[in-house]
């Protein structure tokens, strides 16, 4: 049994939250530079340039990339030979959120309950944590900041098993069109297919944070990812709804076995301020 001290883990999480607040996924920057050389329209180029300059400004000025510093969403894989000494994983995570949001002047965006007072929790807690137990003696945790704008445009439906791949493409395009500039495109699209009502949504969220340049290992689903990306980009919604060739940077599908009667579908939208990091202890 490998013992990890909770204070080491706490510090690593705080550092990770600090890092993602001021540094987007580096592949976003590369894609944007690529777009600059391809786009013709002045308005589109102006918008792309602003996003590139924002990443530099954020790093230099220590001002968050986006004022919506989001909900902290984590996927933890805990090796069964790891023992986390002291507090529970969820408690350490929330303590790290509380410290990081105060120390780095990040916006407190969580409310205590959804319907009545909507009183701010004043520490951005709780984080949302999904944990799986794996083999080995490592603890791997993906930490992301998820803003409200793109999250609100996400969509979930229990489809008929006779649904065709083409209908899936159409459904995604419809969702992206409805989101328009509200979700802050260019987007990253995470899609869950199969599983059941709750697992399909978790898979869609997990898919958003897969490496942007990695395709689905099943060639049929990899093709579907490509078809969806092509159809979404054909909408010409473009950067912040200003047009251009890129409405989404990448599409990621996570499929899962499902009931004979079901075809669960979920799509989670992510904005261009793609903030996530994975760390292994």
């Amino acid at each position, binding site marked *: 049994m490998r013992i990890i001290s909770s204070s080491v883990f706490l510090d690593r999480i705080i550092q990770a939250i600090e890092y993602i607040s001021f540094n987007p996924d580096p592949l976003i920057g590369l894609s944007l530079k690529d777009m600059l050389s391809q786009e013709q329209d*002045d*308005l589109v180029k*102006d*918008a792309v340039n*602003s*996003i590139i*300059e*924002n990443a530099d*400004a*954020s790093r230099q*000025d*220590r*001002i*968050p*990339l*986006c*004022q*919506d*510093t989001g909900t902290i969403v984590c996927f933890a894989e805990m090796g069964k030979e790891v023992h986390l000494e002291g507090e529970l994983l969820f408690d350490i995570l929330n303590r790290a959120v509380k410290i990081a949001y105060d120390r*780095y*002047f*990040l*916006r*407190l*965006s969580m409310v205590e309950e959804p319907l009545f007072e*909507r009183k*701010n929790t*004043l520490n951005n807690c709780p984080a949302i944590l999904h944990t799986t137990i794996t083999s080995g003696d490592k603890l791997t945790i993906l930490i992301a900041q998820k803003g*409200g*704008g793109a999250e*609100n445009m996400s969509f979930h439906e229990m489809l008929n098993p006779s649904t065709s791949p083409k209908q899936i493409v159409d459904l995604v395009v419809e969702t992206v069109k409805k989101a*328009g*500039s*509200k979700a*802050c495109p260019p987007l990253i699209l995470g899609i869950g297919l199969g599983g059941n009502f709750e697992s399909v949504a978790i898979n869609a969220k997990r898919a958003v944070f897969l490496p942007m340049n990695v395709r689905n290992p099943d060639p049929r689903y990899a093709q579907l990812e490509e078809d969806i990306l092509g159809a979404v980009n054909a909408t010409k919604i473009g950067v*912040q*709804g*200003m047009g251009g060739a890129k409405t989404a940077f990448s599409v990621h599908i996570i499929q899962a076995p499902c009931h004979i009667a079901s075809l669960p579908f979920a799509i989670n939208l992510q*904005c*261009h*301020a793609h903030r996530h990091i994975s760390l292994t202890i």
Partner: protein
Amino acid sequence: MNIYEIHLPLTPSDFNLIGIGDKLLLSGEIFTARDQAHKRLCGLIDLGEELPIRLVETTLFYCGPSPIPEGKICGAIGPTTSTRMDIYTPLLLANGLKVMIGKGERSPVAKQAILDHKAVYLTALGGISALLSRTVQSFSCYMWEDLGPEAIYRLEVINFPVYVAIK
């Protein structure tokens, strides 16, 4: 795309000058207000009470800023989704509001109300908050501090970039 430097508040001649798709560089006073502040403003109007801001001269920015880091003028600022404010917008327009800054499309009802009142809806780019923060010369909580990021903040900006979306 025309680019105009505009000194707020927006004058009738500015209004006549600008067109859909133009880029404006705004300088002057801006007030933030998002969901909860809108709810309170409309609540005051419903009660017939005087508003804390003169809507006719106000540029309303749908924004919940992040806190001010030590030694800085302000934190991250950027637009939030405007559709959430659509249910409040017609009442604010009826009480004099002329300029709004947000992100994304408006509902048909809100859009029509903006057109009917000869008001302007401007959009700012989302997710460029550190860059927008550089345009801020002064920043303070104006009222309803208890709302945290949803309070009304007063900003003075120089060359704050927006695009004309509805007029």
